[in-house]
């Protein structure tokens, strides 16, 4: 364990701020999928790099927690390493790359392939929390639409996809209905991960720092992806298997290996891939 930085409160944020964020989280858990406004703070990293997620993690983390941070499924990318080290130094907590060992997993683009367990908490970094924003620029109007469950027009986007591409071409940040009530953006995870949101035993928290919103999917909550009857929701599939571990069921990244058209497909979840080859 790294030694803690002197002069900082535990997990960087002051206790008043953490209490305010916890209240927002409690409200979010009580109303699954509802966006709760909160007083987002300046964090020592730029907006868009996970300021929302880092504030949620800071207010729920305890000394006994084990933190895992992933960026694009990988544990060893710059942002993942920075955030992991941030909490190692400001909270002195243990960090891990192993999904099974983690109690808190902060992520932006992926849900780990290894099934989550009860007691684990997923923290998502959300860039734009409002699923209706592309349709309606006014915040007052989108709030009314949420209040009255006026979500029918969301399908206009899928209609456009099918009209122009022959299928629903939305592949990430695929809108869902939580607990048969609120429309929610699941952050930019691929739609491949949408089924993992449904009835997950883990608590899932979503933090948007710039937009100052927190929302949540409590454990074992119904999460349904929007679709048409004649164009049902489906996830991505690949003709290849992972070149490292041979998995045919995980989300694959295409990696260019040279400038002569060489390429390989590998698991985007590095911990999952490593656990299968070890």
């Amino acid at each position, binding site marked *: 364990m790294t030694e803690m930085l002197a002069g900082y409160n535990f997990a960087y944020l002051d206790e008043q701020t953490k209490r305010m964020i916890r209240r927002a989280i409690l409200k979010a858990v009580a109303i699954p999928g509802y966006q709760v406004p909160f007083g987002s703070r300046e964090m020592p990293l730029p907006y868009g790099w996970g300021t929302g997620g880092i504030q949620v993690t800071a207010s729920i983390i305890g000394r006994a927690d084990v933190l895992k941070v992933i960026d694009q499924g990988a544990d060893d990318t710059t942002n993942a390493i920075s955030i992991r080290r941030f909490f190692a130094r400001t909270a002195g907590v243990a960090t891990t790359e192993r999904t099974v060992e983690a109690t808190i997993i902060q992520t932006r683009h992926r849900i780990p392939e290894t099934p989550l367990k009860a007691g684990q908490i997923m923290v998502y970094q959300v860039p734009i929390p409002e699923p209706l924003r592309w349709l309606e620029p006014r915040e007052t109007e989108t709030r*009314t639409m949420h209040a*009255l469950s*006026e979500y*029918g*027009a*969301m*399908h*206009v*986007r*899928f*209609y*456009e996809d*099918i*009209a*122009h591409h022959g299928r629903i071409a939305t592949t990430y940040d695929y809108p869902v209905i939580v607990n048969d009530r609120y429309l929610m953006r699941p952050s930019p995870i691929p739609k491949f991960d949408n089924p993992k949101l449904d009835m997950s035993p883990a608590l899932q928290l979503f933090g948007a720092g710039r937009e100052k919103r927190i929302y949540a999917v409590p454990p074992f909550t119904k999460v349904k992806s929007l*679709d*048409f*009857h*004649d*164009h049902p929701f489906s996830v991505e599939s690949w003709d290849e298997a992972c070149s490292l571990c041979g998995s045919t069921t995980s989300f694959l990244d295409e990696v260019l290996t040279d400038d002569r058209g060489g390429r390989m497909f590998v698991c985007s979840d590095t911990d999952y891939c490593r656990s299968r080859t070890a």
Partner: protein
Amino acid sequence: MSALPMLDDVPPLLVVDGLTVAYGTRVGCRDVSFELWPGEVLGIVGESGSGKTSLLNALSARIEPAAGRIHYRLRDGTLADLFGLSEAARRQLLRTDWGVVHQNPRDGLRLTVSAGANVGERLMAIGARHYGEIRGAALDWLGKVEIDRDRIDDRPSGFSGGMQQRLQIARNLVTKPRLVFMDEPTGGLDVSVQARLLDLIRGLVADLGLSAIIVTHDLAVARLLAHRLMVMRGGEVVESGLTDQVLDDPQHPYTQLLVSSILQV
């Protein structure tokens, strides 16, 4: 002009009583009362600033009136106080039972999605979840408003003004509304396009048995479309009656002025 429906035993669709719209201390329209019957087209004419659009916005529940009542007969036959209904119910009416055709089609259309999606949006908003059926309905309606079917996947931003206006009408009528509000539906179009659009509106209104309230400053439009006219000035209704009666034998000095101001070619 098509014959008026038999009014004797049909109850009115819309009953307006003492309606006043105010913007702070300024008055939009004052003490307007009238009734509208199923299948009837009511024209509201008057100069700019006479309160026509304020009245229309209040009637379509988009602004709350300062005084007065609006009762609307719901599909189940009950006469409901519009502002006694919940906001959810009012918005539901606006999406299903009513249509609003704006003067500027940009206010009523989504310019960033295709014509088909524009027509299909109201169907999706009331729960249609079958792509094939939505597209079928969109194609059908494009045909009815004389837009080429192969334009279904084009964005309305590339359409001419007349086509945009016709698309807006299709978008509103796809849910089979019973009452349509039109604010200067032919404004900004050249005369030959206007004539075609008027023909289209007149045909659709007659075929579908729609009731309509049409705001216009163009007396020719009023003469062609409206069964009855209300003439407004300074926020008040100065004269009302059957269209031909008001236009051919105007009683109020302002109406006389309005009728005599038409340029004779």
